[in-house]
């Protein structure tokens, strides 16, 4: 059964450093998303991506964040200058269409020290 994969599973970085989180969405899906979940809190939407451009973004997704689909299979989230409050689980998701269920990856745990 196809699934969303994410690497790395855990990333530790120092405040102010840049990090890139990587995702491989399900192959026939067209819509891609990033969500995050701070420990003990709700899953929060960051950004959606379709047809090589951002469709929607939340207030959390400020200028420190960017997304890219560098090739036909990968989808990345870059945080330019990490802050302590960026520590969270980051989930990539994909869906076949805009209105179908979104399938989530296993997540990357980002720890900023």
């Amino acid at each position: 059964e196809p699934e969303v994969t994410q690497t790395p599973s855990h990333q530790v970085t120092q405040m102010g450093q840049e990090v890139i989180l990587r995702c491989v969405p399900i192959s026939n899906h067209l819509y891609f998303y990033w969500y995050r979940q701070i420990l003990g809190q709700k899953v929060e939407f960051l950004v959606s991506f379709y047809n090589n451009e951002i469709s929607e973004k939340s207030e959390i997704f400020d200028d420190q964040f960017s997304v890219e689909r560098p090739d036909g299979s990968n989808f990345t989230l870059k945080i330019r200058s990490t802050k302590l409050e960026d520590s969270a689980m980051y989930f990539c998701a994909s869906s076949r269409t805009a209105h179908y269920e979104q399938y989530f990856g296993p997540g990357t745990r980002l720890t900023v020290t």
Partner: protein
Amino acid sequence: EDQVTQSPEALRLQEGESSSLNCSYTVSGLRGLFWYRQDPGKGPEFLFTLYSAGEEKEKERLKATLTKKESFLHITAPKPEDSATYLCAVLPRGKGSARQLTFGSGTQLTVLP
């Protein structure tokens, strides 16, 4: 602003003791309501999509139902392996392509043997 409220926050059941989880929502036009299961440290795992009031979906010991204001996840004769956090999320109608899911805080279910 879209809002999702889940209750109870935590539920402990004996194996075989059936119960229901509640998801109340406020959204400016519902495109779909989704139930996910989340195990500790993992990504949300898709369970059901409900699109219109009166709709029901079943999978093994789980049944999801939808009204105009809330959804229920009924668990019949649960087993210890059903222990997890169950998340409800809504997808609003609206313009644009990909849409963001708004999640509730979840119900943490523990099934005791």
